[in-house]
């Protein structure tokens, strides 16, 4: 019976290999963000299925909260997914499919042909989506800055808003909120030295102290808008795909940094993913250090 045992062992090894690859694929998708909501598509529940064949062919299906989510953002997330998956060392054939969207056929054709944004949208595309991406990186930075500075103000009731002028990155506590701000700054090419001021515009320039209350107020509106959209989109996804709730991770004050969420992709029977926060205990700490969120109502 030794042959049978060896065959069994080979099969087990193949199954393990496939599971590991599926896990690696999900980890790669953790690096793909919804630019509007500033969260990984995995946490949002946008990844519907990941399948790897024994030959190494990888298929990922994505789903969105409505058929009428903006097609430019839908395309960005789908093409970023394909890029992230293609970069894995073992992938050969990568298929990314966007389900149930008004532009599913168009986008899926474009992805299959690696046609790029202009090749996909033809006459509707003018140049590229880089400016759109930049606009939302700036918004993400503004919101992260507001979260960090609101914590600073709450920690010291005597501090005036104008005095935030002098707050530098080195003054911020070592929390997830501060870490999130640093990553948003890096994404925009802003300095991350401890001596760099926190309250800056998109080009890293400080606002005059007299302008600070207004600028902070506007930053709050940006944060309210992004957080509100994120909660609405998550809810709509659950309404549209009732089983998607199990795939969503609660929105923290900021997304978990790339690389810390690797165990999040443990496959479980039925192919559903264990929500990341059940496996990563550190995730809870992030929740505690994030600014107070709206009550779930």
């Amino acid at each position, binding site marked *: 019976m030794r042959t049978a045992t060896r065959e069994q062992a080979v099969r087990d090894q193949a199954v393990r290999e496939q599971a590991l690859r599926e896990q690696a694929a999900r980890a790669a998708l953790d690096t793909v963000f919804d630019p509007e909501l500033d969260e990984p598509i995995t946490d949002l529940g946008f990844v519907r299925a990941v399948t790897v064949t024994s030959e190494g062919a990888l298929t990922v299906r994505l789903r969105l909260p*409505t058929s009428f*989510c903006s097609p430019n953002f839908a395309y960005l997330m789908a093409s970023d997914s394909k890029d992230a998956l293609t970069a894995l060392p073992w992938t050969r054939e990568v298929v990314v499919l966007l389900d149930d969207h008004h532009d599913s056929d168009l986008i899926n054709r474009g992805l299959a042909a690696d046609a790029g944004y202009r090749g996909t949208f033809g006459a509707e595309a003018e140049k590229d989506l880089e400016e759109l991406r930049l606009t939302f990186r700036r918004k993400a930075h503004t919101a992260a800055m507001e979260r960090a500075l609101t914590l600073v103000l709450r920690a010291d009731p005597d501090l005036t808003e104008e005095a935030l002028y002098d707050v530098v990155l080195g003054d911020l506590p070592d929390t997830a909120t501060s870490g999130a701000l640093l990553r948003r700054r890096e994404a925009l090419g802003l300095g991350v030295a401890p001596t760099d001021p926190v309250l800056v515009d998109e080009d890293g320039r400080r606002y005059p102290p007299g302008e600070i209350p207004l600028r902070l107020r506007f930053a709050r*509106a940006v944060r309210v808008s992004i957080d509100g959209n994120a909660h609405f989109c998550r*809810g709509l996804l659950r309404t549209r795909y009732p089983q998607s709730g199990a795939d969503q991770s609660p929105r923290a004050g900021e997304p978990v940094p790339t690389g810390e969420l690797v165990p999040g992709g443990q496959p479980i029977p039925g192919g559903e993913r264990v929500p990341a926060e059940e496996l990563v205990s550190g995730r809870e700490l992030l929740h505690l250090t994030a600014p107070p969120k709206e009550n779930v109502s």
Partner: protein
Amino acid sequence: MYSKDGENYFIVDAHVALWDARPENQLNIHGKQFIDCFYDYHRNLSPESELWPYEEYLYYGGERLMKDLFVEGYVDHAIFQPARLGAFYRNGFGQTEEAFALTQQHPDKLTYNHSWDPRYEQKGLDQLRRDAERFQLKGVKLYTAEWKGDSRGYKLDDPWTYRYLEACQELGINNVHVHKGPTIRPLDRDAFDVADVDKAATTFPEMNFVVEHCGLPRLEDFCWIATQEPNVHAGLAVAMPFIHSRPRYFAQIIGELLYWLDEDRIQFSSDYALWTPRWLIERFVDFQIPEDMTEYEPITLAQKKKILGLNAAAMYDIEVPAELGVAEPAVA
């Protein structure tokens, strides 16, 4: 009129529709996708007791509309804001003839706004003049993400849009309700960006620009332009039902609007039949900014009265019984 605790509220529902999304009116899959998207909004944000069956949601007709708004819904006056969606529905989404006939039957209760699309250029401009006369238009509803041929959107500062706005001004159509959707041409841009509303509002200072769902999902960009342009207003379509599903988020929206705009430039709407007005009005009258949200002032009784009806009444010259006004009149 709605009454509670000895206070009476004059109600204007500034954004209602009479749509037909039944399969026989759907031109293609997008007709189904569009109404399914609406139905998910409805299911996601409504209290369980207010949920409609899908079949009724596809088409409800004038009789039910009258009952939901005026018999059960406390509404004194409602304004049709139709979306045409000619690329998705055979006879359009908003039912022009049916809605206009209802308006003629109940001129004291209903106002009919029509829509136009600048991409029809001169032909559409001629049509606008005929429509203005036939419907006695005071306002128009513009859905900027309407699909037409290989274009799936337009901007308010496009040259042809300006020609249509000039015609509106000349014809006395001074209220422009802008509804931003997910597509725009070119797709390089953020379709929800309201910078074009800013430009149009500056160019046409005598016209009112009501941005529906108060700029959501770009609340911040909307607030930023509205604070600078006194003729930019916030319509509360879509924002209202958050009062049930996410009351703290609703408080933040109202708090931000009251801070950046002022209480004279915010208009209630149920967005019927996405939602029905009755429960929204009841909840809004009971609503208060949570005490721990110290960044926002509490909302006052006068502000609620203005938002629920007096602001839109002033904009549309709808007569308000003297005892239902507030000491300081709304200025729209």
